[in-house]
């Protein structure tokens, strides 16, 4: 027993001594920046169920290589560190902590996914590390008051909802709107944006709201309800699986409203073909980025530049994949911010410059769309154009619509 007590005493003494010394924090200087380098971090799902998105992380890396080959930014090369999180929030937390605490990056950029970013949202803001241009459409990234270190990039669901509302107000004066939405944050975001966009007219115009759960087997009864409500405009806020059902069912029962399909489900291959191209004719959706398969862009300089970039820096990437256009465009936005920072690459200044983008044009966005941010507006892209499905492809038409700034 003597041996035991001695061990335990030793443990206790050691523990107490260590406790007393704890709590010391290192002083912060400009983390992740030297005279020749700026270190930035990223996570992407290179493996797992969402690995189709992984090409975004690779396209970002390819564009940064191009920037470095051309001399970097203000004499600094960008050291881009990207880790696989498999779209699993615990892995994202681990990898982002590794980036911030071990690799000591200046900031984290374009982390992908809504649940994954939710898991690190608080952490980034507690650590006061910029969490820039996250790759998700949720509206919560635009909350500068509570989360001053996090910023989105693509149009969020509310902004898109507002844009459909503006179109309806302008073009369908006698609109009676039926809404089908997924009963979660994503669906409610769209509906909120849509109602905000309609403003006072919302009460009068919306005649029926139907929701579904992702676990529902079908949404047939919701579609029947919407038809019998007499709606002549159908705002369809569904994920691909249910979008297919909704388009098919509406066609089968002979309901022919003005059908607004959220861009989440605008894929021709995944949604419209399975639903039937005939049934999908006349659908409307929104676009903000040039679709690389759309022939109208092929002769433009932006597309040619992008293609040259893909050939040289990311030859294994798929040139039909819009995600590669997306990654290219986000990287260009980032380069703009870093150039604006000049030699002051402190985290505060990076955030300041990211929050003061004025009318930035990014070549592969649709012509006329401009990026704007301010200290109270952390939603960079809030403009989109509508497109109509002609039975074969989406055809852009009309003006660029903008969500109203708050």
């Amino acid at each position, binding site marked *: 027993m003597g041996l035991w007590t001695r061990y335990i005493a030793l443990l206790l003494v050691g523990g107490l001594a260590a406790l007393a010394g704890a709590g010391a924090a290192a002083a912060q200087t400009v983390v992740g920046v030297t005279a020749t380098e700026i270190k930035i971090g990223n996570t992407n799902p290179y493996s797992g169920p969402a690995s189709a998105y992984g090409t975004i992380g690779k396209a970002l890396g390819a564009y940064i290589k191009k920037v470095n080959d051309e001399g970097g930014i203000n004499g600094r090369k960008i050291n881009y560190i990207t880790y696989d999180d498999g779209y699993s929030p615990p892995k994202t937390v681990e990898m982002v902590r*590794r980036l911030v605490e071990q690799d000591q990056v200046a900031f984290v950029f374009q982390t992908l996914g809504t649940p994954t970013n939710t898991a690190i949202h608080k952490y980034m803001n507690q650590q006061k590390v910029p969490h820039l241009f996250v790759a998700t459409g949720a509206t919560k990234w635009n909350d500068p008051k509570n989360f001053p270190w996090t910023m989105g990039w693509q149009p969020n669901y509310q902004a898109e909802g507002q844009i459909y509302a503006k179109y309806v107000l302008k073009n369908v004066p006698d609109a009676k709107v039926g809404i089908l939405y997924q009963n979660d944050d994503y669906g409610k975001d769209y509906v909120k944006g849509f109602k905000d966009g309609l403003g006072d007219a919302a009460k009068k115009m919306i005649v029926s709201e139907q929701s579904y759960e992702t676990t529902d087997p079908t949404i047939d009864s919701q579609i029947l309800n919407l038809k019998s409500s007499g709606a002549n405009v159908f705002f369809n806020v569904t994920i691909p699986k249910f979008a297919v059902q909704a388009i098919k069912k509406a066609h089968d029962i002979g309901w022919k409203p003005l059908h607004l399909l959220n861009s989440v489900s605008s894929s021709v291959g995944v949604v419209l073909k399975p639903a039937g191209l005939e049934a999908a004719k006349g659908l409307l959706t929104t676009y903000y980025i040039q679709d690389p398969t759309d022939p109208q862009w092929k002769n433009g300089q932006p597309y040619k530049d992008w293609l040259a970039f893909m050939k040289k820096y990311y030859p294994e990437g798929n040139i039909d994949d819009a995600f590669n256009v997306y990654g290219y465009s986000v990287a260009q936005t980032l380069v703009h911010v870093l150039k604006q920072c000049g030699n002051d690459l402190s985290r505060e200044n990076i955030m300041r410059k990211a929050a003061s983008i004025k009318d930035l044009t990014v070549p592969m966005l649709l012509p006329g769309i401009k990026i704007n941010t301010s200290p109270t507006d952390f939603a960079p892209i809030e403009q989109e154009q509508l497109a109509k499905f002609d039975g074969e492809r989406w055809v852009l038409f009309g003006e660029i619509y903008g969500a109203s700034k708050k």
Partner: protein
Amino acid sequence: MDSRAGEAKAAKTGAGQAAAVVAQSHATALATRPVGVTTLLVVLAAAAMLPFFVSGFRLFQFTQVLIYAIALLGLNMLTGYNGQFSLGHGAFYGIGAYTTAIMIDRWDIGYGWTILCAGMVCLVVGFLFGRPALRLEGLYLALATFSLALAVPQIFKYFEHWTGGSQGIVLSKPKAPFGLRLTEDQWLYYLTLAATIVLFVLAWNLLRGRVGRAIVAIRDNHIAAEAMGVNNALYKSVVFGVSAAYTGVAGALSALAIAFVAPDTFDVFLSITLLTGIVIGGFGTVSGAIYGALFIQFVPTWAQDISKAAPWAIFGALLILFMYVMPRGIAGFLHLVWIRLTASAVSREQGR
């Protein structure tokens, strides 16, 4: 395993020498006990001091190792000791995590209680699942538990009012109590370490005595066990419950450590990862849970550092290599090394 190796040796060398061999292995056990205790205490002391020598990020990783170790120990009781295969322990991990998250988020209950409740909920769910699963053997049980792993994430999404649906639930990390000057990471580590020690001691006590022998007997030959008076049905469902409870506690701790739960975290891949952990760590051993946890925590990341292009191919190759070099897991391998070392030390002392 000691005695089995001894028996094999005895059969080879002839019955006459058997007694001598048994006597020697007794001598080895006696001579090495202080060494074993010392090793254990050194490891414990190192674990207790760790927070003051590593960064917050590393500490977070080691907290995850401990959490995995608890889950692996639970699974090992069921699969390694009792011979019931589970491809669905990720589901219990998830149920534990959600129990904690919902209790904190909805009712603002102290996180310490929620860990206990997570264990209790999983004990009951595991026991109830174990009852009908009694009729299923081997592969069929594996399939039944697999279906559990598939179903549970969707069930979490379905009860959106409670679980927050696919958006999950965001929590805050618990702060150190009693005015201790510990960071959140350090406190979580100690909390997890304490839970790990308690649960390991309990498991060790359970498995080495009469109950443990009955559990193993059911695995080795359930008819013989029944004939010896072991209540197979009861034992199997209780082991299922206890195993689920361990995994549930691990899930609860992980919810606190990550401070976020989302349904798709607890997918089939997690269940398979846990199974990988017990096989690599050492099937049917207590210490194997720690080695397995170290493996599933660190090796995938190393694989990623070795090759960005094909980390899972590297991981797969490592798995095969481990299986080839250490067919009885890391625990079995270390045990073998230990026996070789101590046996030669003892025979030197005895002047043979």
